[in-house]
């Protein structure tokens, strides 16, 4: 029973983490940006979901529609903030030192922290209604909230959609071409600039979606962004920056390591994530699924 509990807890945690990390790794894969502000988009997604669900409630629509409100919130965040950020800020720094882009996204992270406070204030928001929509699931003596399993389904759907989109569609193949070499893709007539905006927007959508899905489980208030960005960085480093499979395996490793620690050695919970990362990096310094890259000599 303990092993099953660890497995369920680990996979539930990994699902949430995967949705965040998938966006992070996608943005890195396409734009080569380590986007520290990803955590802020997650937080904005949570706030937007709180607002949208609240708005739905005032319209007296069926509570079952509240997940639609959460999805719309994530779409709205991506549609509004991603072009503004990518075209208005990041584009200015393309081609410069990668470290500079890290600093720019860190600055953006700090700015968005204050912007969320400015827009939504410091008072917590609660939108717990959707949390109970999926009932409870019993496993032996343990009771789980059905919402947790819905998270697993969403994570799998997101992973499959991104994988299918990249590997089985024309747009995806164009994106892969840009990932491989933006210069060659550009010379072949690909509008690289548009691909960048599209990829960034989808990455931000995933961050905002993860935030929106988290909103019913927590009180939405300042500080949401910090914890998530640190642990999702651990995931993408384990999996290999830019790799979808890596993000999935990385999230599973982190989720299971954390669950194992909490159930068997709680004091080592935080340590467990980083020891897992250290072990992987000893044998695979560039992560589990880092693509082989051509290097200019």
């Amino acid at each position, binding site marked *: 029973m303990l092993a099953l509990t660890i497995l369920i807890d680990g996979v539930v945690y990994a699902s949430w983490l995967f949705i965040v990390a998938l966006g992070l790794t996608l943005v890195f894969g396409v734009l080569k940006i380590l986007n520290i502000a990803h955590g802020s988009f997650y937080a904005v997604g949570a706030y937007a979901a709180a607002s949208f669900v609240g708005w739905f409630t005032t319209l007296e629509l069926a509570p079952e529609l509240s997940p639609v409100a959460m999805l719309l919130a994530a779409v709205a965040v991506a549609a509004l903030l991603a072009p503004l950020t990518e075209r208005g800020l990041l584009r200015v720094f393309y081609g410069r030192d990668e470290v500079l882009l890290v600093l720019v996204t860190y600055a953006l992270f700090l700015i968005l922290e204050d912007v969320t406070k400015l827009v939504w204030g410091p008072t917590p928001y609660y939108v717990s209604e959707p949390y109970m929509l999926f009932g409870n699931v019993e496993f032996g003596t*343990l009771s789980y909230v059905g919402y947790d399993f819905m998270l697993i389904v969403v994570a799998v759907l997101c992973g499959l959609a991104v994988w299918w989109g990249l590997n089985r569609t024309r747009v995806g193949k164009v994106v892969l071409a840009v990932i491989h070499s933006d210069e060659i893709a550009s010379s072949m007539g690909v509008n690289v600039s548009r691909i960048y905006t599209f990829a960034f927007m989808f990455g931000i959508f995933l961050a905002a979606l993860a935030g929106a899905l988290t909103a019913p489980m927590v009180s939405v208030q300042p500080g949401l962004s910090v914890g998530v960005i640190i642990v999702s960085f651990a995931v993408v480093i384990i999996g290999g920056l830019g790799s979808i499979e890596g993000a999935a395996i990385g999230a599973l490793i982190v989720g299971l390591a954390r669950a194992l620690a909490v159930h068997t050695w709680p004091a080592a919970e935080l340590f467990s994530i980083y020891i897992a990362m250290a072990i992987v990096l000893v044998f695979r310094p560039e992560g589990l699924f880092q693509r082989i890259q051509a290097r200019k000599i």
Partner: protein
Amino acid sequence: MPAVNGAKLLVEAFNNGTAPAPYDKKGFGGIQIEPIYVDEAGGATKQVQELKNLYDREKVDAVVGYVSSGDCLAVAPVAEEMKRFLILYDCGTPRIFEERSYEYVFRTAAHATMDNVALGRYLKAKNVKVDTINYINQDYAWGHDSLKDFQLTMEQLYPNAKTGQDLRPKFGAGQYGTEISALLQKPASVTHSSLWGGDLQALMLQSAPRGLMKRSQVVLSAGDHVLPGLGDKMPDGVILGARGAYGLMSPDTPLNRWWFSEYEKKYNVYPVQAPYRMAQALLGLKLAAEKAIAANGGKKPSPEQLAAALKGFSWESPAGTISMAIANGHQAIQPTAIGRTQYNKEKKRVDLVDIVRFPAECVNPPADMKSEEWIKSGFKGAKC
């Protein structure tokens, strides 16, 4: 935010001279108060810098602040080194004055030992059967100290009770699914937590639907402040403290009636622990400042004069008498209360019932003993 709201309300009342006697002199002894508000977010290093800015750039005469125990531990030595006046109004770790002494630093609220001793005494007073205890406390100064105080208290009051799970999630974890499974897998008679703020709200939202409160008696050392926000999402029957006789457990006195109603009127919500603690800090500071001003011939006192006036002082607050009785007159003790949650459908709010009140000397260590030593001695000299 509720603490700042409380401060704004009181500073305005002080400056207008509209607070009830003996707090009705305008400002501090006629000197108008110019408040500066600084956000505590950002961690201990940032707070040390902010504190220095307040003293050096803003030239403030006194700083009242800090919720986080980690921040308090960081800023107290800095104020002392700069020889500037500082009141820690909220943070709970007993270590501040038990590990070193200060001349310029004060804490106008009781530390976390009171909260955990009171919880233990409440369980005993209500004949709650305790065979095993699970713990979930944050992995930083506040969580560790609260855990230790409650464990030591239960060793005294329930010597046969055994520890089950001892979980220590990081501050701001947000996701507690795994911890809740661990608590449910080995349910204990009592589950103790000192989680607060967003962490406590998340724990309640995630654990209630999974039936944690049905399998274990949950006790929270600092839980009152989440009640207005959670409303009917807060399960019935949770035993909790407010870190003082605050909010719905506050005493029926003229001063408290004024404070409670003014706050409720202005912010459309009743005051919980943070504004109460802010109020008792500002009320104490006001009287101490007026004492120091009088001793200084009506002029603004120096930090040394202000510190001398507050040292060992006592005053009436909305939550009862605050006495700077321990740590050589720098650390307050105060009465407290513990209650049990019960949702009131008519008022659409969580009420606290089965309230038990504890005098300050019953749940706080005496002046000559450290918290740990006092609990281990079987609460020597406690007046209950």
